[in-house]
């Protein structure tokens, strides 16, 4: 009885008592949700076009950010470092296509999936090898990103909003819009969609898969870079982030592997859901449930809708 009260009544009472905390919690969840969504977006881009489930996306985020900060710490001006970092992501895309995707074309998905584990570990090693293992501070101001925070004194409390988080949200929205246009309007975009639908068909109308792959991996790389900057601005840049980056996987399960809106919505559900869960229900379990809540949500979700929120039902054929 008491337990039921604690589970079903108390948290809501508390939400009412301290609305500022509720708003703060939702905002926190919203921001981390955006970041999850951005990583998931990278997954989706690659999965749509090459059918590869890119486990390395999370690491690409850290790697990109690390490269940026690394170049800067070598005394290169911020903007140049940014351009260089983009260049590195392009190189990465080319290398991955040459070294991993091309030799593995037509292999079972699961093999490609495991290959991205290889990429993950290689990037971790490489990144730390070049730039050192210690966490680095993101060069926020040098990139003309807003710093500091604003406190809104409302509802008998206050809500802190960091300017960088607002920026993150805005940039995320812009990027998603750009990608949307890119996919629907541009020639390459349409080519990508063609590839997503059928590799053979794409080939038959003379689209080079290899180019497409380079392009999507590059696109994913840029998404990763942006994500990395945003994330690095909230907490230092280090490979410790990779565990958090894994949270993009449950996001994908919710959103479906091929749906960009799915990634966004999934990201927000997971982000807000886990923060609310941790803050209001976590104490009942001794806290720290954030580390698994997302996965369990996804797991339960899988039981009822394996194809994801926006995926359509799969008909098996023989």
């Amino acid at each position, binding site marked *: 009885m008491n337990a039921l009260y604690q589970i079903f009544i108390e948290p809501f009472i508390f939400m009412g008592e301290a609305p500022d905390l509720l708003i703060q919690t939702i905002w926190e969840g919203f921001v981390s949700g955006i970041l999850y969504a951005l990583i998931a977006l990278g997954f989706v881009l690659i999965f749509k076009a090459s059918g590869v*489930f890119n486990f390395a996306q999370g690491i690409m985020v850290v790697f990109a950010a690390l490269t940026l900060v690394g170049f800067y710490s070598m005394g290169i001006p911020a903007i140049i470092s940014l351009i260089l970092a983009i260049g590195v992501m392009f190189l990465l895309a080319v290398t991955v296509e040459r*070294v*991993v995707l091309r*030799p*593995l074309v037509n*292999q079972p*998905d*699961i*093999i490609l*999936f*495991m*290959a991205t*584990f*290889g*990429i*993950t*570990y*290689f*990037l*971790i*090693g*490489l990144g*730390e*090898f070049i730039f050192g*293992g210690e966490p680095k501070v993101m060069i926020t101001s040098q990139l003309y990103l807003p710093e500091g925070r604003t406190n809104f004194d409302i509802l008998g409390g206050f809500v802190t909003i960091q300017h960088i988080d607002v920026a993150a949200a805005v940039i995320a929205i812009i990027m998603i819009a750009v990608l949307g246009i890119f996919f629907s309007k541009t020639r390459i975009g349409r080519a990508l969609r063609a590839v997503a639908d059928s590799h053979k068909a794409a080939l038959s109308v003379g689209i080079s898969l290899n180019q497409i792959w380079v392009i999507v991996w590059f696109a994913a790389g840029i998404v990763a870079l942006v994500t990395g900057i945003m994330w690095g601005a909230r907490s230092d840049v280090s490979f410790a982030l990779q*565990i958090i980056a*894994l949270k993009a*996987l*449950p996001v*994908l*399960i919710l959103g479906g592997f091929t749906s960009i809106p799915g990634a966004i919505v999934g990201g927000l559900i997971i982000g807000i859901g886990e923060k609310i869960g941790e803050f209001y229900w976590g104490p009942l*379990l*001794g*806290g*720290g*449930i954030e*580390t*698994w809540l997302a*996965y*369990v949500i*996804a*797991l339960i979700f*899988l*039981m009822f809708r*394996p194809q994801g929120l926006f995926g359509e039902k799969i008909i*098996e054929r*023989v």
Partner: protein
Amino acid sequence: MIYRESGQYKTSYSADMAVFPLRQDRIGIFVIIALAYSMAFFGSNFMLQAVLIPFLIFSLAAMGLNLMVGYAGLLSLGTGAFMGVGAYACYKLMTIFPGVNVIVWILASGFFSAAIGVFFGLPSLRIKGFYLAVATLAAQFFLQWSFNRIPWLYNYNVSGAIEAPLRTLFGVPIVGPTATPEVRYVIVLTLVIFLTWIASNIVHGRVGRQWMAIRDMDIAAELMGIKLLQTKLLAFAVSSYYCGVAGAMMVFLWYGGAEYNVFNINQSFLILFMVIIGGLGSLIGSFLGAGLIFMLPIAMGIVLPAIFGPLGIRVGAETIEHLRFMILGALIIFFLIVEPHGLARLWQIAKQKLRVWPFPY
């Protein structure tokens, strides 16, 4: 020349179905086992404690994962956690019933991880491939959290860690700080050989065939009357059992104690890599993979400085660590591309070449 099958005729199906149809193979395996046991007398403490014992334990874990990924085609990223379940179950059992011999508990602890494995395997009917992988991540993180946040599991130790209390077999300490590496090595070796034998029986029999069937073409398998859920759950159970036992051995016959983050996701990845590099769907591969991946850092730690030291380039511990990651990643990609069946396949090829020698084809 020595490695010839000519003149060995199989006169019965059972002979033909034997795991080692060739006499040379049978002899070979016996020699290897004999050597392995003799290491207990010739191996240095370092050799036993820091190389052979962990190698065997990792091999066992890899074997467990291989049964699932390699044979049944179910990708799991939760191995570390399932090992943890075994370890904590064993800890509870041996502290609650100190009377019963610890080896019994080590073997029994596997059943607990098997049960947990089955539970987290339930979604495997609806979902496949990376979806399932994510599902197992849920197991990984949830279990790891439980090891940490359920103090009952570690008997409310302030430190939150579990230590191996002293346990003996025939008066000889086998678990706890005073147990000598030799004794522990012999026990680990015996258990691993025993479990390997069982695993080989499983995979060469009906069950193994059914696992491979659902791996290769689950629809066809289903239409042939193989019950998918039962078969998959059996795979989860057996695999988790092996991982659990490996986990219990790791804590009580190797480290002598552990805390929750011993069983973190990197542990899971490492073992998955052992399976991939060793060879999916091969028991011997599990050993080869475990050997390669576990030896790698030790080897690099000694080889690299030896090479670069003289050149005045200092190779710090962390450099080796970074290189280890890079090499690991590169190896995985390399094997997936060049030889998806891993070291095991190379081993076969070598044997095949030897068989037909001196003819090159």
